[in-house]
C-alpha cells in the first residue's frame, strides 16, 4: 500500500454479457466492486451492481412544477394584477391564453433543472478530472475496478477471481486520492 494513493485491481472485459455475469458472480463471492466503467450504457448493469433507480425524474418533476408556478405567477402578476387589459374581449384572467407560455416554462425549467442536477450529482464539470483506470474504457473495453483494501481477498486472489469470470486482462492500478 502506497502513501500516495489507493490500490485497485482492475479487470478488463471485452463483452457486455460476460461482464454482467462476472459482476453477479464477483458480488456473489462477497467482493465489493468499486465501479464498472464502460464505453456505452450496458442495460441491466445497475441491477447487477445493486444500484437504486435514479431519482433524477423526481428532480425534473419538481423543477417543472416550479416552472409552472413561476410562469403563472409572472403572467397573472403582469396581465391581471399590475396592468389589467382587455385583449380580444377576454377577461382579466384569461387562463387559456396562458397555457402555451406555462407549458414552455415548465419544460424549460424541468429540462435545465434536471440536467443541472445530473451534472452536479455526477460531478461533471468542464474542469473535472476523469477517473481513468484504463484509457480503453471509453473505446472498446469494460473495466471493473475493485479496491483492494476494502476487500478481504488478496490482490492475487482478486485477479484470479476476475480471470475465472471471463476478464481478458487484469492489472493493478494505483489511483490518486
Amino acid at each position, binding site marked *: 500500500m502506497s502513501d500516495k494513493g489507493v490500490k485497485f485491481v482492475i479487470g478488463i472485459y471485452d463483452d457486455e454479457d460476460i461482464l454482467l455475469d462476472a459482476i453477479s458472480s464477483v458480488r456473489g463471492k462477497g467482493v465489493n466492486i468499486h465501479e464498472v466503467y464502460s464505453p456505452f450504457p450496458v442495460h441491466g448493469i445497475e441491477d447487477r451492481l445493486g444500484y437504486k433507480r435514479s431519482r433524477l*425524474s423526481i428532480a425534473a418533476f419538481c423543477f417543472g412544477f416550479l416552472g409552472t408556478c413561476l410562469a403563472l405567477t409572472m403572467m397573472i402578476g403582469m*396581465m391581471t394584477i399590475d396592468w389589467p387589459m382587455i385583449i380580444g374581449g377576454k377577461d382579466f384572467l384569461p387562463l387559456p391564453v396562458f397555457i*402555451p407560455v406555462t407549458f414552455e416554462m415548465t419544460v424549460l425549467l424541468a429540462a435545465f433543472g434536471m*440536467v443541472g442536477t*445530473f451534472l452536479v450529482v*455526477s460531478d461533471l464539470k468542464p474542469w473535472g478530472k476523469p477517473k481513468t483506470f484504463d484509457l480503453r474504457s471509453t473505446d472498446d473495453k469494460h473495466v471493473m475496478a475493485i479496491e483492494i483494501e476494502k476487500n478481504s481477498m488478496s490482490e492475487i486472489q482478486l485477479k484470479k477471481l476476475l480471470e475465472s469470470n471471463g476478464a481478458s486482462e487484469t492489472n493493478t492500478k494505483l489511483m490518486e486520492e
Partner: protein
Amino acid sequence: MHVESKLRKPLITGGKTLKDVSEDICKRVEEKPSLSWYAAMILSNITLVVGAYAVYRTLWDGIGMWGLNKTVMWAWDITNFVWWVGIGHAGTLISAILLLFRQRWRMAINRSAEAMTIFAVICAAMFPLLHMGRLWIGLIWVLPLPNTYGSLWVNFASPLLWDVFAITTYFSVSLVFWYIGLIPDFATIRDRAKKAGRKISAFIYGGLSFGWDGAAKTWSRYETVSLVLAGLATPLVLSVHTIVSMDFATSVIPGWHTTIFPPYFVAGAIFSGFAMVLTLLIITRKVYNLEDYITIKHLELMNIVIIVTGSIVGIAYLTELFMAWYSGVEYEQYAFYNRVTGPYWWAYWSMMTCNVISPQLFWFKKIRTNIVATFIISIIVNIGMWFERFVIIVTSLHRDFLPSSWAMFYPTIYDLGMYIFTFGLFFTAFLAFSKYFPVINMAEVKSILKHTGEKIKK
C-alpha cells in the same frame, strides 16, 4: 439480453467491432479535413459574407430594403422563418420521439439531425429579429420587462410572444439534449488524444467532456436523463410548430383562420425536416465513408416517414380547399380560389407538385432505396415546403378585403440576400460541426452493435 429477429436487416454493416466504431468516427475529427471540406467551407463562407451585406443594409437602412408593402406586410422573412423552424423539427423528433418508441435506427442519425436542428433554429431566429428593425431593441422588447413604449408589459395573449417562449425553449432544450449526448463521445476523443500524445486536443476535448469516465452509476443517471428529456422534448417539438401555426390561425385573415393549422403545420415541419436530414446525410455518409452506419435501411425508413407526413400534408391541402367551399364564407372561398388560380398560381402548383405528388413516388421500393432518387426528392420536398409557406402567407394577404388595397409582393435583392445569408450560416455551422464533433453517436451505436450488427445476424 436483447434478442432481435434475424430477418431484420442489420443496422450496422461491414462487420464492425467496437474499436472500428471509435476509429471510423474519431478519424474525421483527428485527421486534417479533406480538400472537398475546404472547398465546401470556402463556398459557405462566401455565401455568408455575400448575404451579410443584405443583413448590414437591413440594419443600416431599415426594413424598407425589403419588398414588403402595406398590404403584404409579412412575406419573405416569415416564409423563411417558418421554413427554417420546420426543418429544425426533425432533429429532436428523431432523438426524442424515436427514443420513446425504441427505434434503434435513430442512433446513427440523431447526432447530425440534432446539430441540423440547432443551426436551423438559429437561422430561423434571424428573420423575426431583423424584422424588428433595430435588433438591439428588439431583443429587449420580447422580454417580459416593464417598458414605457405603450402597454406596460409584453402581451401574453399574443401568439407572437408564445413563439418567443416556444422557440427559445425549443432551442435551449435541444441544445442541452444534444450536448448531453456528446459528452461520452468527447471523452472517447479525449482518451484517444491522450493515448496518441496530442496534448492540445486532449485538453480541449477534456474540457468539453466534463470529466466523463463512463462509470456505471453515471451511465445509469445518463439513461434516466435521456429518457426524461425525450419525454419532455416530445410535446415540446409538437408545441413549437403548433404555436408557429397560431401566429396565423388566431388572426382573422381568410386562408389563415383555420383550426386545421396546428396538426397540418406539425406534419409539414416533420416532412421538411426529414427531407433536409436526408439531403445532409446523403452527402455526409458519402464524403465521410459512413455507408456502414447510415445504411440504405436508414434512408428507407426516413423515406417512409416522408411518405406518411407528406400524405398528411396532402390531405390537409385538400381539407383546406373543401372547408373553404363548405364554410360558405365568400372571403374564405375567394382566398382559396385566388390561391389556386390567381397571380400566384405557379407557387400553388409548385407546392402541390413538390409536396403531394413527389413523396408518393416512395411507395415504390426501388425509388425509396435509391440514393440518387432520394436525394433529388429530398431537395424537391424542401423547395415544395418553402412554397407552401410562401403560398399560405403571401396569397392570403396580397388581395386584401378592399380591391383598392390589392398588391403584389416582389422580393428585392436584399430579401434574397437575407435568405442566402442564412444558407451560408447553416452550412458553415454544419461543416464546422462535421469536422470538430463526432458526427455519429458512438456510444449509442456501440450499445446496439452486438445485437443489431452484421455479425450476430449471420
